[in-house]
Every structure is written in structure tokens, then in C-alpha cells.
């Protein structure tokens, strides 16, 4: 029913690189629930462009350093 996303991300790696930031901490800083952060990390939810920018900004990175698009 739901087409798998081709947008991958390295949020988990960035969290660990930022003092082992928890999913709850990231969720708090972006203003979403922890379940949403989990879903994004696992590729079960593609965030809006604005949310993606917010996540990248938390890590002080450019958008494409956190989110990658893998074309077929």
C-alpha cells in the first residue's frame, strides 16, 4: 500500500556524534514526538522538507549531509 521511500538518512549516526543525543532529545528540539523520530530513522516516514531542515540544523549540518536520495 505504501511505497517504500528512497530517501535515506544518517540521523542515528549524527545523534551518536552529538554526545549520544537521545531520540527523545532530538524530538524535543524539533518539536515532534519520539515515535516520529523513530519512524524517520527507520525510513517509515519521510518528513516534510521543513522538518528535514530543522533536523539538519539541530546537528549543524547541511540537509544532504543528513538526508540522502538513492535513485533507482
Amino acid at each position, binding site marked *: 500500500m505504501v511505497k517504500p521511500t528512497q530517501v535515506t538518512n544518517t540521523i542515528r549516526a549524527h545523534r551518536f556524534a552529538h554526545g549520544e543525543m537521545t531520540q527523545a532529545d532530538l524530538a524535543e528540539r524539533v518539536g515532534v514526538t519520539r515515535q516520529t523520530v523513530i519512524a524517520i530513522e*527507520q525510513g517509515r516516514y519521510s518528513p516534510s522538507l521543513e522538518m528535514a531542515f530543522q533536523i539538519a540544523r539541530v546537528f549543524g549540518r547541511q540537509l544532504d549531509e543528513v538526508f540522502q536520495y538513492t535513485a533507482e
Partner: protein
Amino acid sequence: MSYEEKNTWAFGVIAVVGYGIYWCILLPLIAQTPIPETPYVLPMIGTIVGAIVAGIFTGIGLGIFSRDRTKADQRDKEITRFGEQIGSSFIVLGGLGALVLAWVDADTFWIANVLYLGFVLSAVLSVIARLVAYGRGLHAW
């Protein structure tokens, strides 16, 4: 499980239980009286109002015991919208069914019950779609 996901489960359970209670009240009445004279209005109003009240109190109760409380984020809103889109098909089918019954001068019992069934099926389908979206994912890009 987030507050919104728990609320979705509760909404589905309440919709099914409410409709079940309606028929538990109605079936003995149908057995005693002819269908056009069956007093279905009060049980229908009672179960609809009861389901709304139960939904409100369950939402409050879940809010008290959930850490993320009533915070519905963008994903929750997208999933809710997705569920409503899926569920609305049964609202349309229920409306069409009632329209056809009105055309053929069917008893109001049938018209009201087709509409009620449409609402319940819409709610159930919407809940299923939302739970699948919570479990399997929803992709905006």
C-alpha cells in the same frame, strides 16, 4: 506508542463496541415488533452520544497517562488526514445507499441504519488505515 496512536485504537474500539451495543439493544426489539415500528431512534441516539462521550473521556484519560500528552505532530496530522481520506469512501457509500432507499420509499428505519452503518464502517476503515500507516509508514516525499 504515541498518544495519538493510542487514541486511534480507542476510537476504533469505541466505534465497534458502540455499534455492537446498538444491535444488542435493537435485536430484542426487532423480535417483538415489526421493523417499521421498531423504536430504533433512542438506541441510535444513545449509542452515538455514548460513543462521543466515551471518546472524550478516553482521550482525557489517555492524555493524563501519556508522557507526550496531546501533542499531535506533523506525522500524526498526516496520518489522520490519510485515514480520513480512506474512511470517507464509506460515508459516500452510506449516503448513496440512503438516497437509493429514499427513492424507493423505504422505511426510515432502513435509511437511518444504512447511514449509521456507513458512519461506523467509515470510522473503522479510517482507524485501520491509520494504524497501518503508524505501523508500516507514511511517505510524503
